[in-house]
């Protein structure tokens, strides 16, 4: 089994540069069905409007941080099953614990490389790469 190349991915970050990096790296994994949001609030609006197969989100954003977005997603019966990867510079143990307790599917610390991104996505979908 391999990654579904048509999966809809929502990437969320307040740094336009990071959105561009993520989009480019995902394209190299042949994952091109990518949509963007600049903060948690915008992401939640998009998620409620139409379903996504995966959310890849930064933590530090306003309005609505990545962890707040995650909690909203997990509290919403319709959105709850959506895999959610946190990509953040917040690498303190307590942050990872908080995210895990909130139901994050995986956690990537910035700076990261394409290989890490691929491995984490594959891990979330339990596929071999």
């Amino acid at each position, binding site marked *: 089994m391999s990654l579904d190349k048509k999966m809809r991915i929502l990437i969320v*970050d307040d*740094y*336009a*540069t*990071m959105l*561009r*990096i993520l989009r*480019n*790296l995902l394209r*190299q994994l042949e994952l091109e069905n990518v949509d963007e949001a600049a903060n948690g609030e915008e992401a939640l609006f998009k998620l409620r409007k139409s379903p996504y197969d995966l959310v890849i989100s930064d933590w*530090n954003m306003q309005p609505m941080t990545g962890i707040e977005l995650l909690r909203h997603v997990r509290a919403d019966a319709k959105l709850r099953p959506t895999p959610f990867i946190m990509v953040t*510079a917040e690498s303190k143990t307590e942050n990872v614990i908080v995210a895990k307790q909130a139901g994050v599917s995986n956690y990537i610390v*910035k*700076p*990261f*490389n*394409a290989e890490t991104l691929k491995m984490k996505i594959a891990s979330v979908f339990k596929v071999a790469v």
Partner: protein
Amino acid sequence: MLHEPPPETGKPIELGNAHTYLNRVIAELQALRSEKKHPLLGVLQYLSDHIRQTRQDLGALRTADGALLGTTADELEEVVAETARAANEIMGAAEAIEALMPRVGKDVATELLNAVTRIYEASAFQDITGQRITKIIRAVQDIEEKIGALAEACGEGEIVGGDPLGDAALLNGPQLGKTAATQDDIDALFDSI
């Protein structure tokens, strides 16, 4: 009574006024013959010296135009903006290279893909440095506020910053985007001289 008390205005006494008041008390105490005055004089003199030193230190932080750390946060914000612009330029160039891949052989395309991927990965530095510098900007702004409040409490009159000398008096480093003169501005100025 040795001296007049500070005026009862209902407002806290400014440090600058307090210093003047303290020095007056010291002078009046020194005029007394009592031997018991010496320990108290020592303490008051220490306080007076300390206030004077604080005012000098604050003066040293102040630039010739009166600003404290006024431009430091702006300079750092400009660093963030400049690196973001550079990162986007680099990525734009990498994307242009990536677009050429279908036009080259498979081996070369693979090599190009690996190189372009490394460029994308490395471009993430801007996000990390941006976050770190933003934290520093907040700290500088906080320090700036506290120093400003302290300078105000010390009184403005006696705090004078030193003017830079030599090249330092001329060189300000790269201009801040929001106040920068354009090349056209410079050309117009140059032609007008």
